[in-house]
């Protein structure tokens, strides 16, 4: 069982991916394509076109047998490769087996409360992560999945069953196709089903102007969370940092001011919903 998974990045200690100190593992690959995605290089798997190799100033990239090879020891993290990649990908990924990942997690274990899989979209690798989650749980750690909400609930149920819960995005409702390129409303249905079995750690919505139905999205989530007081709703103001130039051209003017952002908090309060966090 030497199956591997493509990992974009491992953050040994993260304080923003669920409660306490957690190890965050970012998988490569996502089926959505959101206008404001802050790590759009995690969306596609590298197709080994080689464009980045020519642009790497520190010779950390090379082509062997038609494949782009990344040498981390030479990399200066200038991210030039990510800037020039026309395919929303990165050559800076590493393939790990479950044992590779477990070895890292074991070494961090005394200092962390759990592991959060983020991405990319972790549910794309449900089978791999199910087994990995079971192993992690045996260490006495919790496992969270940071998901965009678009997955086949029944198909990935073993993963849902294996983990402690989801940090679930509800990015938009009516405007989800414009914002993220998906047509259906699976995410809302999945939110409901996860809530019913107590598998939601928190719900998250990134707010920006114009491109989404802000009030409708907030209302849809708040209505569903009303009877689950243990589940907080986190509103995050979209930022310009981390956006690629072409994204910035598209959504730059839609970034909210803090004042505009805080008004959505007021909206929830007026609605009688108070269990939310504003991340300016």
């Amino acid at each position, binding site marked *: 069982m030497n199956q591997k998974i493509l990992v974009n990045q491992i953050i*040994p*200690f*993260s*304080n*923003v991916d669920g409660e*306490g*100190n957690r190890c965050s593992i970012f998988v490569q690959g996502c089926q959505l394509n959101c206008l404001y995605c802050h790590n759009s290089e995690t969306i596609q798997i590298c197709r080994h076109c080689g464009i980045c190799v020519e642009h790497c100033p520190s010779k950390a990239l090379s082509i062997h047998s038609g494949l782009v090879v990344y040498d981390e020891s030479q990399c200066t993290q200038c991210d030039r490769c990510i800037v020039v990649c026309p395919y929303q990908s990165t050559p800076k990924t590493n393939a790990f087996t479950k044992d590779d990942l477990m070895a890292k997690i074991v*070494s961090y274990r*005394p*200092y962390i409360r759990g592991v959060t899989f983020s991405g990319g979209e972790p549910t794309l690798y449900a089978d791999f992560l199910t087994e990995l989650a079971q192993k992690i749980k045996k260490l006495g750690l919790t496992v969270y999945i940071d998901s965009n909400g678009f997955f086949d609930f029944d198909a990935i149920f073993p993963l849902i069953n294996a983990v402690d819960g989801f940090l679930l995005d509800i990015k938009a409702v009516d405007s989800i196709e414009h914002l993220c390129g998906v047509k259906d409303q699976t995410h809302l249905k999945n939110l409901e089903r996860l809530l019913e079995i107590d598998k939601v750690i928190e719900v998250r919505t990134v707010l920006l102007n114009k491109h989404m139905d802000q009030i409708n999205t907030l209302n849809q989530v708040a209505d569903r969370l009303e009877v689950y007081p243990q589940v907080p709703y986190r509103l995050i103001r979209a930022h310009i940092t981390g956006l690629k130039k072409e994204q910035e051209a598209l959504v730059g003017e839609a970034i909210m001011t803090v004042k505009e952002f805080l008004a959505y908090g007021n909206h929830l309060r007026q609605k009688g919903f108070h269990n939310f966090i504003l991340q300016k």
Partner: protein
Amino acid sequence: MRSVLNDLTSTASAINMTYQQKLFSMANIGERLVDPRASLGYTDEEMIYIENNMICDLNEGYLPYRPRYIVPDYEIFVKNGCDFLDIKPPTDIDTLLDGLLILYSHVPSITSFPVYIGRLDQLIDPFIRDEESDYIKIKRFLNHIDKTIVDSFCHGNIGPVETKAGHLILKAVVELQNPTPNLTLLYDAQLTSKDFALEAVKTCLLAAKPSFSNQVMYQKDVGNHGIVSCYNALPLAGGAYTLLRLRLGTMVKKATSTKHFIDIILPEVAQNMASMMDKRIKFMVEESNFFETSFLTKEGFINQDNFTAMFGIVGLADAVNELLKLEGIHETFGQSERGDDIGHNILSKLEHIVGQHEAPYLKRTDGHYLLHAQVGADLSPEDRDNTPAHRIKVGQEPILPIHLAQSASFHKYFKSGTGDLYAFDQTYLDHLEALLDIIQGAFSEGYRYITTYLQNSDLIRVTGYLVKRSDVERFNNNQVVLRDTDIFGSGTNNNANVFNRQTRTYE
């Protein structure tokens, strides 16, 4: 190191010292004018190791007439008051705090300032009547200490149990933003409530204290104790007679191989240091009459039986780096498995040597010195080659989880104290639980003591004590500053670049 008469002249006319700093400095110079061969019976061989900087005696002087660190049991004052000072037992918070301030000015140490001022929350809590007005008194008390005990080695303890007084102290510490007193939470996961621990974490980020000590581990190794000076764990109602230190980074310069260093140089220098410590203790006990004359002994604040002494090291990283070079390995301590092995081999050997040595008047610790990871408070240029304790050199630090695991493995040797410190970024203020997870994890892995601060704060932990960056800058510009530790802070930063430790951020 011995002084010369000229040191007195230059001190008298120094432009960047207060009157009090000059007074204490000149007294210290006086203690070092004496020839230790005459006063203490040091041999010529022992003197060579002081003169070639392999052994640093921290300028303790050659007529040791008081213990270096004294850890009085201040509960005695609450029970009995003090006969010598003619103070009755305290009846309310005013007479308690007033009495403690008076007592502090009569507790000697190597710096002449008290290095331990008690388990403050436990002393104060029984006298709390009205939190609002008592808070003002506690804050005034702590501020008084900062302005009169002008030496941030002065150390108070709180915990492990949560008390009202403990919370009020933490609140005052944040508001005051003072370097002194140093403060440590004696942390015991079984006894310290989560709320109190989180409050302490927050305070530590906002005011660079309290630090966290592993109460369970120290209680096992030292028994009833106080955390004093930088982070020394010393017996309560006792203390440490003396502390000398091996400069491993200097000793290694004579080594021709790892084996030569560990088998020949280390035992030879270590034995000389142990015998010097023996002589210092004998003088203190047999000739200085300290224990016969001090009211602290007579009235039970201290007992000579509870005194031990500290066998210090500095510069493990430098020694290991040099030995790695000799072995032809291009790695540095902290990011080298072989480096860790060499480090452990050095310390195991030293532990064995110190464990074999029978020292006088050390009843409390079975006749043996306790190893101490000394962090340096010295202005000597030699300390450029001697990184504090077993710490990784600033600039050679690995990522945090690796750093924690690496250093945790070295804490076990140092029963009389070691500790590590980490600078974190602002995001942790919103995620206190994450930082508490790291602290608890460190303790579960064998850490004795851990502390933190925000990288961008004015208050900064130098090696174990606190300074304000702004004060150090003033001293560097030849201006007079209040604390002797500000002066040490300047020297240590110049030597070890501690103001630029790696900031730990979540990505």
